[in-house]
């Protein structure tokens, strides 16, 4: 390890411990040309510590800090519980606040539908999409099923036991979507608390198949698990031979939004500031490396485009959920 890296890390340690206290400056004058946050930004995470959304939020706020992209710290705040409902309610109450943003996942769209909450995506200010997370169809290496055709044949014969994160969330949604499109026997879906546990139960042969995000199960590939297909729109450059479900004849495309929203009626200057900032983060090599390693699709959208895209996604989710009979 070089002496340089020593100095850099210790410098960072010292910076954070000593100078964070001095950072926040109140310059809350009339809005000038470029709006900037004047106090620490609350970065709400719709899930608990250690989950996917948590990782992204902490990566982003760490990179903002490391590259000095903002004059104030971005403080990750976990508001887990109620499949995101608690976080959404909190941010809804922050109407017009320019110092609160929220990182979201699929439950941002699904929980309001499932739980019939008095708010949904329309209430929040879209800021930007930073990535789309992918889902693969996994089976255990020793499973005689080696491709999607065999999988479908088996799943038409008997209800297969599959596992995923949470109940009536993205993993179950994908299985349900698969069921609907390929005419399968209803899966025996076993809900677990986190993606890591789901992968463990696949590797330990407790369940026959999962739709883990690549990052959760790639560590076992190819010794313990086999990837049958990806639910992405296009093939991944990391896995050029891995076919998409659509190529295989099943029109099932699903990707999870890794995006950032603001509270209702967030001032436009603030919204644009965060969108610009996230663009800078997105362009960093560190961030791109992270996306590539974890097989996320880098795809950036600004506020308007993201807003339109989210509306389309909401309708897709609603359709699948209604068809699956989760809500009446």
């Amino acid at each position: 390890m070089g002496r340089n890296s020593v100095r850099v890390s210790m410098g960072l340690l010292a910076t954070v411990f000593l100078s964070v206290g001095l950072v926040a400056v109140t310059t809350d004058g009339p809005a000038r040309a470029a709006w900037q946050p004047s106090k620490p930004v609350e970065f709400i995470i719709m899930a608990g510590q250690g989950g996917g959304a948590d990782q992204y939020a902490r990566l982003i706020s760490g990179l903002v800090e490391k590259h000095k992209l903002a004059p104030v710290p971005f403080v990750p705040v976990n508001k887990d519980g109620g499949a995101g409902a608690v976080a959404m309610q909190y941010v809804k109450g922050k109407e017009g606040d320019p110092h609160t943003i929220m990182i979201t996942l699929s439950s941002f769209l699904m929980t309001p539908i499932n739980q019939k909450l008095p708010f949904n995506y329309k209430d929040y200010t879209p800021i930007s999409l930073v990535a789309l997370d992918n889902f693969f169809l996994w089976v255990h290496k020793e499973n005689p099923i080696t491709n999607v055709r065999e999988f479908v044949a088996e799943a038409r014969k008997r209800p297969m036991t599959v596992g995923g994160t949470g109940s009536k969330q993205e993993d179950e949604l994908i299985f349900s979507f698969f069921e609907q499109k390929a005419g399968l026997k209803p899966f025996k879906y076993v809900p677990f608390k986190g993606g890591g546990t789901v992968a463990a139960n696949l590797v330990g042969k407790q369940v026959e198949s999962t739709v883990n995000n690549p990052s959760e199960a790639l560590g076992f590939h190819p010794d313990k698990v086999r990837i049958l297909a990806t639910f992405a729109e296009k093939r991944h450059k990391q896995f050029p031979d891995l076919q998409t479900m659509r190529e295989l004849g099943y029109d099932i495309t699903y990707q999870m939004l890794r995006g950032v929203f603001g509270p209702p009626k967030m001032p436009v200057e603030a919204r644009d500031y965060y969108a610009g900032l996230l663009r800078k983060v997105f362009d960093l090599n560190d961030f791109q490396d992270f996306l590539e390693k974890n097989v996320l699709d880098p795809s950036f959208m600004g506020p308007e485009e993201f807003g339109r895209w989210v509306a389309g996604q909401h309708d897709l989710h609603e359709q699948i959920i209604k068809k699956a009979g989760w809500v009446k």
Partner: protein
Amino acid sequence: MKRAEVLVALGLLVVALVVLSQAIHLGPGWGEDGPRAGFFPFWLAVVLGVSSLWVLVQALRAPGGAGARPFFPVGGRRLVLTVFLPMAGAIALLEVVGFYIASLIYLVIYIRLTGRQGWPLTLAVGVLFPLITFFIFERWFLILLPKGLFGERLLPF
């Protein structure tokens, strides 16, 4: 003591009944793949109901009257309330002015009035504690404590 015993048992019984009605609404039975959402709450409510009913009956049958130990020792009620009420007040205040200012006010009032300590000590603790927690939580570890409705504007930093 007896009255407290009866009241607590009654309270638990009410909880049991409320949970029972909710559980029935959720489906207390055994579905195709195991217990449904209301299964455990239902049986737990039954257990709580039976046990609290038992305690209630025992309490009612126990000899009461002058010989029994009172729930609060002499002067105890006042002593407990002098801790409990300021705490409740502090939490209510926290909703309005946030943690730091609420804790300052709470500490000053409690240490001065209940603790009967001198002003220098009272003020020292009252001012230092919020300041230290502010730096540890808000600044170093970046944990944002509640600011309440107005706390944001009242903080000088």
